[in-house]
């Protein structure tokens, strides 16, 4: 018999429906688990114990009275600390927002609240999403529950670790270049970067506005589809959100894969993939064949240029987005003899190294005389990357790659060389400039028991298809 914090969302909903579990028992179980695990893992920046228990009691009360409840009634969850949550601190993992209390809720918080889900805390991350290991947080590193000497991935590493150990049944991460998929892979859970615009970004602290994607991190594929069904959709507060109707993503996932085509990207398998990761991917391919899929080799010739283009655009947008961190309207402010000195000291003292590096690089890439060479050139390469990817989907239904080329690594192993760290994101960063959806699904473990994830990439708005592949794989 599973302890409540070990349940999936679906299992917990069924037990509560049958009256065999209360929301209060479930929330208490998760909060106790958090208390036990946090001294070692540090997945949370803020824990919302009182409000969570209060809401759980209200939901139990309402259920007793036979009131109609939301689709996620009583389910405890967490969000990455980049989402505004009314009355609760939102730090983005940076000291520059320490003490900032959000005056309003992000749209996803409103939607989850509207379905009676219960927020139990806000999770650690690389500051502003800048990183792949959660080592760049001002609130300490998060440790991987599968091996505490190793990173949980990033930037949504706190979300990955929390879902993995049962600190809430799901989390909402944020993915600008792999920040949902990398920690999903390293922590052995399911993480979706949806199509750009599928989920509203309103109330998310911006990293790179033309990449940022809001998505669910869950224990299994069904839960992921269920959460996406709740949070997706048009939002008048985010002009880039899509008006396309939102299906119930849980409905078509059991359909057969017979005759479906999977593309293997030739260029990706050459890029220094760890032998154990490669082995797990090869086994996954065999499994898909067994499910009736055809496998085809696909070429994405501009792959070699993707990382450079991704980062140039990403840091340019970041340098512009982070200009608002000035200490005037929110966050700590430093002393200085005039306004510029105060401004420079505030940012110098409260941004971490990776934030400063990216802002300076982005400012450089946008500066007079360099914008054509860097920013505009990268946007042109982006057009080629998009054409490459869309063309690939003329011949195959999805692409399959490793999520990360390597196993979860040890603390400090890559942090001294920022360029080396950036290159680890080769398979994940390519997706965001193009805007397509990509799902990371567990596909095996290393000899020492470390999780390995595969990435399923689909054409724009093909989330339903991705879930169908993933669910069939998970069940087989």
């Amino acid at each position, binding site marked *: 018999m599973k302890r409540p914090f070990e349940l999936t969302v679906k299992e917990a909903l069924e037990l509560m429906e049958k009256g065999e579990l209360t929301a209060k028992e479930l929330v208490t179980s998760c909060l106790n688990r958090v208390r036990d695990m946090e001294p070692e893992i540090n997945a949370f920046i803020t824990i919302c114990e009182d409000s969570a228990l209060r809401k759980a009691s209200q939901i139990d009360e309402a259920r007793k009275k036979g009131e109609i409840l939301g689709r996620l009634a009583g389910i405890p969850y967490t969000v990455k600390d980049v989402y505004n949550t009314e009355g609760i601190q939102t730090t983005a993992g940076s000291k520059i927002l320490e*003490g*900032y*209390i959000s*005056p*309003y809720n992000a749209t996803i918080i409103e939607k989850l609240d509207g379905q009676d889900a219960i927020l139990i805390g806000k999770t650690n991350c690389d500051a502003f999403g800048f990183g792949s290991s959660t080592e760049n947080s001002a609130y300490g590193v998060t440790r991987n529950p599968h091996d505490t000497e190793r990173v949980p991935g990033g930037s949504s590493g706190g979300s990955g670790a929390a879902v993995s150990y049962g600190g809430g049944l799901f989390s909402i991460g944020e993915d600008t270049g792999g920040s949902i998929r990398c920690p999903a892979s390293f922590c052995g859970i399911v993480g979706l970067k949806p*199509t*750009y*615009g599928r989920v509203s970004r309103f109330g998310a602290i911006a990293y790179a506005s*033309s990449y940022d994607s809001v998505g669910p991190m869950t224990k299994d594929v069904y839960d992921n589809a269920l959460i996406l069904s709740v949070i997706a959709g048009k939002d*008048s507060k985010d*002009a*880039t959100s*899509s008006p396309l109707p939102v299906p119930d993503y849980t409905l078509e996932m059991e359909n057969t894969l017979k005759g479906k085509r999977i593309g293997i990207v030739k260029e990706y398998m050459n890029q220094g993939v760890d032998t154990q990761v490669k082995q797990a991917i090869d086994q996954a391919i065999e499994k898909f064949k067994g499910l009736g899929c055809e496998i085809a080799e696909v070429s994405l010739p*501009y792959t070699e*240029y993707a990382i*450079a*283009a991704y*980062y*140039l655009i990403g840091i340019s947008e970041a*340098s512009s987005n982070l*200009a608002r961190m000035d200490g*005037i*309207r*929110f*966050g700590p*402010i430093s002393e200085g003899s*005039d*306004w510029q000195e*105060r*401004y*420079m000291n505030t*940012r*110098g003292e409260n*941004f971490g*190294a990776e934030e*400063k*590096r990216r*802002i*300076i*690089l982005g*400012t*450089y890439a946008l*500066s007079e005389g360099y914008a054509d060479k*860097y920013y505009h*050139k*990268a*946007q*042109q*390469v*982006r*057009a*080629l990357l*998009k054409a490459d990817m869309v063309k690939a989907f003329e011949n195959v239904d999805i692409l399959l790659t490793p999520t990360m080329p390597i196993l979860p690594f040890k603390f400090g192993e890559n942090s001294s060389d*920022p*360029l080396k760290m*950036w290159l680890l994101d080769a398979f994940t960063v390519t997706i965001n400039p*193009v*805007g397509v959806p990509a799902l990371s699904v567990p596909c095996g473990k290393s000899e020492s028991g470390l999780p390995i994830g595969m990435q399923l990439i689909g054409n*724009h*708005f093909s989330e339903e298809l991705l879930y169908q592949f993933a669910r069939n794989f998970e069940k087989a």
Partner: protein
Amino acid sequence: MAKQITTEDIKRIARLANINLSPEELETFTAQIGDILAYVDKLSQLDTKGAVFKSQTDLSNIFREDIVEESLSSDKATQNRPKSSKKGYIAIKSVLNK
């Protein structure tokens, strides 16, 4: 090959970005940013003539009716102001000299 970036370049850019850097940071960043710029320089080898990026999902020109809705009160919108500011205001040090 791009020209080597110097500490003077980084100092100038950091001032544009309004970030104060320590001498140690200046030195580390100059080397690291130099490496990164050398890496991204590979884009210059690529022929991108005629390539134009429009949007991720082909959405364009999103309009809506201009309807007045309830918004944050000034109290709430300024609730994170520095402690020295009066309610509903944000006080800053003087920008213009008398």
